[in-house]
């Protein structure tokens, strides 16, 4: 797997942006703090050094010229300062200090407590922090020069390790808090996604709680309104179908009665066949409308026997394919389900196999470790075009027109079967068999 720098999830992205920002701010803060501290340390360094140098100057000035060399030797002993008395300003390869730096040293020398009568007659300053040393030449009242060479120690802004540790700890804590807060803040987005997913599966899934931050509450309310509209729409359609189905029963009954008075046997048979087809459509429509709010109680039933009965009935209805219907599985298996609903679901699947595939093999597998029953309904027909596979479960979708003519369905067989099986906590999927034909896989909780 490739490591992705830009994560996929909103929470991770937000956290990444926030933490990156935090790190930048921390680094900048640290930088500002360090440069500030360096400045202060340099100032302190300059001041301390200036006081020392002024002290040396005073000592040397107050000494008789003939004794000065001895005093200087004495001062140099055991010190990091190189003090010399000369009749000329210092000779060094260090560059002259720039005026801004010089004024700092001059101010410090002036403040160092040397009395005014001995005010500085001449000051030459070379070097600076960059060259890590400084050379200062001070002209004494009698024209001799006191030249001092002093090292400038490296200024360390991070002298304390605890400081860095605290800083790191603070950053980590802030990052942790950021992660937590971001996860919390993006939770409504995940909830919304889950709710949308649930709505897709079941239009009657519970509404979202409309609380939390105002944007989230607004989104939840909008989502609930949308769900209610969809529910209303589905309900309207279902009620419409049911109403049409109910209203059609009377004219169909009349037609069936009238057909009995047709003297021509052939015409009567054809008429009755037409009416049967019409009735089958109404029956499917009603079943589709009803399944959405099934009220049939769940009872223990013998699933194996139910499957065999479905095959028997399919064989009775199509005697020409009766020999092509097979059941494979245990002789009995008790499950808890809705008998009429489940029978209709499997009858629809077997009828499809018979109508499109000319045969049906139903296989019942005993429950697996996960507690799921698998029932397969296979045929050896032409199969389903790959593009159609995901559309066959759409209500009123009917394969190719040439096929639906002879089967006369309304395209509700699979949607009804799926509604029923899902209401049982199971599902149904369709796939083409490698050997040709369709394999319908039904799962049911054992």
């Amino acid at each position, binding site marked *: 797997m490739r490591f992705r720098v830009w994560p996929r999830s909103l929470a991770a992205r937000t956290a990444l942006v926030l933490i990156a920002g935090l790190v930048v701010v921390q680094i900048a803060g640290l930088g500002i703090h360090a440069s500030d501290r360096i400045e202060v340390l340099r100032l302190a360094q300059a001041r301390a050094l200036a006081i020392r140098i002024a002290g040396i100057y005073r000592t040397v000035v107050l000494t008789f010229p003939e004794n000065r060399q001895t005093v200087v030797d004495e001062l140099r002993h055991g010190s990091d300062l190189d003090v010399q008395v000369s009749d000329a300003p210092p000779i060094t390869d260090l560059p002259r200090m720039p005026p801004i730096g010089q004024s700092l040293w001059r101010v410090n020398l002036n403040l160092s407590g040397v009395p005014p009568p001995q005010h500085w007659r001449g000051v030459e300053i070379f070097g600076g922090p960059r060259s890590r040393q400084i050379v200062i030449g001070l002209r004494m009242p009698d024209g001799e020069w006191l030249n001092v060479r002093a090292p400038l120690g490296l200024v360390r802004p991070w002298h304390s390790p605890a400081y860095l540790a605290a800083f790191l700890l603070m950053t980590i804590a802030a990052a942790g808090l950021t992660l937590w807060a971001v996860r919390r803040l993006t939770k409504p987005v995940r909830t919304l996604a889950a709710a949308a997913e649930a709505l897709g599966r079941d239009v009657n899934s519970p509404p979202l709680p409309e609380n939390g931050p105002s944007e989230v509450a607004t989104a939840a309310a909008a989502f609930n309104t949308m769900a209610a509209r969809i529910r209303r729409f589905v309900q309207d359609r279902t009620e419409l179908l049911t109403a049409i189905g*109910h209203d059609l029963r009377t004219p169909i009954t*009349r037609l069936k009665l009238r057909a009995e*008075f047709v003297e021509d046997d052939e015409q009567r048979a054809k008429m009755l066949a037409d009416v049967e087809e019409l009735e089958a459509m*109404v029956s499917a429509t009603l079943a589709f409308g009803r399944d959405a709010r099934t009220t049939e109680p769940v009872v*223990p039933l013998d699933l194996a026997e139910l499957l065999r009965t479905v095959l028997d009935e399919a064989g009775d209805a199509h005697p020409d394919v009766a020999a092509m219907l097979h059941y494979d599985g245990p002789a009995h298996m008790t499950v808890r389900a809705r008998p009429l609903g489940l029978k209709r679901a499997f009858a629809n699947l077997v009828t499809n196999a018979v109508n499109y595939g000319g045969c049906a093999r139903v296989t019942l597998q005993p429950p697996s470790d996960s507690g799921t029953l698998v029932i397969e309904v296979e045929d050896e027909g032409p199969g389903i075009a790959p593009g159609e596979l995901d559309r066959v479960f759409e209500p009123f979708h009917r394969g190719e027109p040439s096929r639906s003519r002879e089967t006369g369905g309304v395209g509700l067989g699979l949607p009804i079967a799926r509604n029923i099986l899902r209401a049982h906590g199971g599902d149904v999927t369709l796939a083409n068999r490698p050997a040709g034909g369709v394999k319908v896989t039904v799962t049911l909780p054992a």
Partner: protein
Amino acid sequence: MESAICNGDMEPAPHILVVDDDREIRDLLARFLVEKHQMRVTAVRDAREARRAFANGHYHLVVLDLMLPGESGIDLARWLRGQSDIPIVMLTAMGEETDRIIGLELGADDYVSKPFNPRELLARIRAVLRRAGDTVERRSEANNRNMRFAGWTLEPARRRLLNPDGAEVALTGGEYDLLVALVDRANRVLTRDMLLDLLRGRQAGPFDRAIDVAISRLRRKLEDDGRNAQLIKTVRGGGYVLAATVERA
């Protein structure tokens, strides 16, 4: 042909009371039963008229639509049961199982769901009339009570069979009718002709083979070994008998 079997020892023309709110269906059904099948029919449109007709005439059977305007068909069925043992065939709405179960529990004898096939309705009417005329079999108030035999339970009100573990075993309409007939007349021989008559209107195809097929499926469902059947025995000379004690509860 078949009318000879059904109406042989009954009065020549059974009188049917049809209760349905659709005038056309009433008229067509009356014509169908009267002209084609030599029955007498009185057709009324609602419960009020049905009561009046029932009080003023003698009927052998009521065909009752459960979806009536005003007083419901269920209420009328309850009232009829309170008055007499008259056989009732209900017309139920497709898919309205609750109505059907309530009706059967009230003591209606049979049902067809609307839109019904007239011939199936006719077959039901004849089967119910024949049972009602069969004085030995005519149950008093024992209508539609559950029947237990050899561990199995048959629930007529719900038209279902429960195995000894209490799990429902699916039956086709024909298998159910056949099993009820066998259990109703347990330990007595049912001729193939009687069974054939039961299946008519329920099933398409050649009936005589249908009997054998239905019996073999019933044996499979009752876990009765076909070669050495103990529960549904084949009687030499063409007939079947259910060999079991039946308890009604």
